């Protein structure tokens, strides 16, 4: 029975391989190493922390790609998601 559930919910490893490769190759192609991403992340945390209290452990940063409007070429995109706990400053004029 457990085997059957496993069989039904199992993701094909071929699809997983393709998705993983596509991500790693975008970063490879533009020469964006994990160290550089880590540095960007640290700088962003410093900058955002002036205004918001953020969940640094839940912060996600990666290089993906998206289609550019008007042409078929895909361009690399820096994707960052930052969980916000609370605003530190309200209504700066």
């Amino acid at each position, binding site marked *: 029975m457990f085997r059957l559930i496993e069989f039904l919910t199992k993701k094909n*490893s*071929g699809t997983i391989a*393709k998705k993983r*490769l596509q991500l790693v190759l975008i970063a*490879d*192609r533009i020469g964006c190493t994990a160290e550089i991403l880590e540095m960007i992340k640290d700088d962003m945390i410093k900058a955002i922390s002036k205004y918001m209290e953020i969940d640094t452990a839940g912060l996600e940063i990666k290089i993906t790609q998206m289609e550019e409007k008007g042409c078929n070429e895909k361009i690399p995109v820096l994707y960052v998601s930052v969980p916000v706990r609370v605003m530190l400053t309200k209504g700066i004029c």
Partner: protein
Amino acid sequence: MSEVIVVTSGKGGVGKTTTSANVGTGLAMMGAKVVLIDTDIGLRNLDVVMGLENRIVYNLVDVVEGNCRMKQALIKDKRYPNLFLLPSAQTKDKSAVTPGQMQKLVDDLREEFDYVLLDCPAGIEQGFKNAIAGADRAFVVTTPEVSAIRDADRIIGLLETEGITKIDLIVNRVRMDMVRRGDMMSIEDVTDILGIPLIGAIPDDEEIVISTNQGEPLAGMNVPSGQAYLNICKRVFGQEVPLVDMEKRRSFFARFSGRLKRA
């Protein structure tokens, strides 16, 4: 018009030497005058795959250093009189030859041969630079695995930087049974990721191991991989050939029992 083709991959063990031997043999079988060059200095292999290991007197480094004439170093194939091998040196290292010397060597061979096939060593260092120095076009060999594809992508980038724009893909060791059940990337997946034209796909075939054991390339033989290699040669000649049908018809029982085993 002669053409110089480098067979490369980045990653080792994906089938560069086997591909070089078989494409070379296939082209010779079709009547072209072909020379195969093993550029992997220090790790000589193409000679054993071709079954010519007992005939080596001089090698690539001897030619470059002027210890012998080109004609003395070229070994004639056992079966095809229009196929030759220039073996690599086993005792020297990669720095024994420079890209400039390779370029000159290849240009000399152009005069005499229709196709010059260069079997490139793994890696992206000097050996790679030597092998691609005189090439007009490249065959990038990969298998449907993440590591081989990642390295192939890097190699394609390096080839483009070096000004080689005619780059074709060979997907080696495809197992249709695994592709069918979704556990291996398909030929389309690989071409899609790498974004270069496909010139051939070779099924994972036991016959390859047997042929290598015997030192007799199987291009043209009546086995799936032999036909797939011959198809690559036909495409090099400019003919349009569909991909070999790798989908062996499986019986209802085989399909059923296979599914039972997985569940």
